[in-house]
């Protein structure tokens, strides 16, 4: 098991959390974490680990900070 930090943004926070520490297994992918949170992968716009973009297949390492955003824009 390894410990990571998960951060949620915009409406993904509704009935969930802003920031939470989680224990995950060696095999756990970002996609697994998104699924476990009950977030539809189709609604995910951006994934970042340690401030770099990442994909559903990535397996976070101990101490990683995972940020999950819905599709957003502005400017």
């Amino acid at each position: 098991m390894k410990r990571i930090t998960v951060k949620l943004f915009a409406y993904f926070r509704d009935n969930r959390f802003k920031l939470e520490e989680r224990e995950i297994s060696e095999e756990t992918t970002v996609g697994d974490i998104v699924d476990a949170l009950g977030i539809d992968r189709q609604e995910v716009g951006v994934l970042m680990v340690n401030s770099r973009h990442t994909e559903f297949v990535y397996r976070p390492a101990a101490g990683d900070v995972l940020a999950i955003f819905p599709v957003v824009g502005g400017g």
Partner: protein
Amino acid sequence: MADKIFRVNMTNLTSTIEEVPPAWAGYGGRGLTSTIVSAEVEPTCHPLGPKNKLVIAPGLLSGTVAANSGRLSIGAKSPLTGTIKEANSGGTAAQLLARAGVKALIIEGQPKGDTWYSLAVTPEGVTVNEETELIGKGNFAVVDALTKRTGGKQGLITIGPAGEMKMGGANISIKDPDGGLRSSGRGGLGAVLGSKKIKFIAIDPKDGKVAIADPEKFREANKVFAKALVDHPVSQALGQYGTNVLVNIINESGGLPTQNFSKGQFAGHEAISGETMHDTILARGGRIKHNCHPGCVIQCSQVFNDAAGNKLTSGFEYESIWAMGADCCVDNLDHIAQADKLMDDIGVDTIETSVAFGVAMEAGVLAFGDGAGVCRILQEDIAKGTPLGRIIGNGAGSVGRAFGITRVPVVKNQAIPAYDPRAIKGIGITYATSTQGADHTMGYTIATNILGVGGKLDPLTKEGQVELSRNLQIATAAIDSTGMCLFIAFAALDNATCLPALIDLINAKYGLSLTGDDVVNLGKYILRTERAFNTAAGFTSADDRLPEFFYLEPLPPHNVVFDFTGKEIDTFWNF
């Protein structure tokens, strides 16, 4: 009603209505303002002198019922940058000008005395009137007084005290449907209107309507177009959180310019974020959604109330909140909202002025984080035109020169907006090559670098960034000519029905048969025309560079510098 060119000569206070020259007929919005400025303004003229001209043009579709088509273009030679300029804004003026039969309003010349004037635009022409009551007044007082004087339905274009004092950061305000203000913010165009001694322009289209060549085809195309906009998830997020939803994601990426561009992340980001703003608006009874012009289906604007539940500001945008917030290290949303309202009232660009405050903080004029101090200087110095107020009101470059600061985030003397080009390299290419000084809206690579819209391109790599910026700048120039809000681009990048529907709308209105290639060629023509003006004004590729500190000072947390060579940047123009 056939569109005409309305021309006002402020030297002799006369006006005429002219036929549209055939060479201008196919253009609207930015395409038209840049064409007219290039054709009629001496590139080397003083921007505040009698030879400069201010050109105001609705877009090709403004005044129709096409969704999101109410944007206005204002062009001139910029007193801030010395380049050609087009500042784009919402509000009701574009639609009302189009309904009055105005394809473009050209304001030229300069009166000799100290008398101030206003313009009244109707389908019959423009009258020039002396104005005394409202001189020296802030924009909100102007809107209130004119709503009483002329009724609430007229369109209004005004300048505040900053425009009267011809500050380089002065904007032009456009009244929105609820009497709030939208801004043609960038490049100091308020100073150009002030140099013509015009305090405001009132627009009454009477019963004028915009002609549609093929109404049925137009209706069909608008249905498809509006659906593409409404269906796109970015449109929905913009309605819920406004543009300020970006604070947290740009902060997370490490590209949120903080403490006068010395860091890429702001410790107080959560307090100024779109999420916090959304919850605050809900708790205080403001409005989550608001449209800057009738017919907008995205509604990214909002009304932000103070703690007592009274309206504090509206159109509270990410760029303004970032600039006053992270860049000045102010983590109090109420101070930022108060400063936003003051800047709207005084009539200064929120990006230019807030970035100027960041440089002033670095110079020790006030402390980083001093939001109350910002509000005090806005009221006591900038609004009153004290020497300090004029130094800050003339923009970030002005502050840097006055105080000997080297970390001055400007390109062509225009303040860099809310994305650090070291951590988001594509936007650095846009800042460097834009024909109008640093401006994120000229080629918004953030969509692809950060947001995953229109594909994905790693923000920290160099590969592909020049091409990305080029394609976006070409497309943006074309969109800015239609009267469409730039936020249609999110749908246009991802939904294959969106852009063809937009072209169908133009074809149905004018009885044309334009194709996608024509739109791309329009964008290229606009960029080349603008660049030719700048070259004739004395600009070279050496001006298409970022300030030195971006190449020297690594930006945390990624600890990266901007590393494009001049030669690499210059390949932008290979089209």
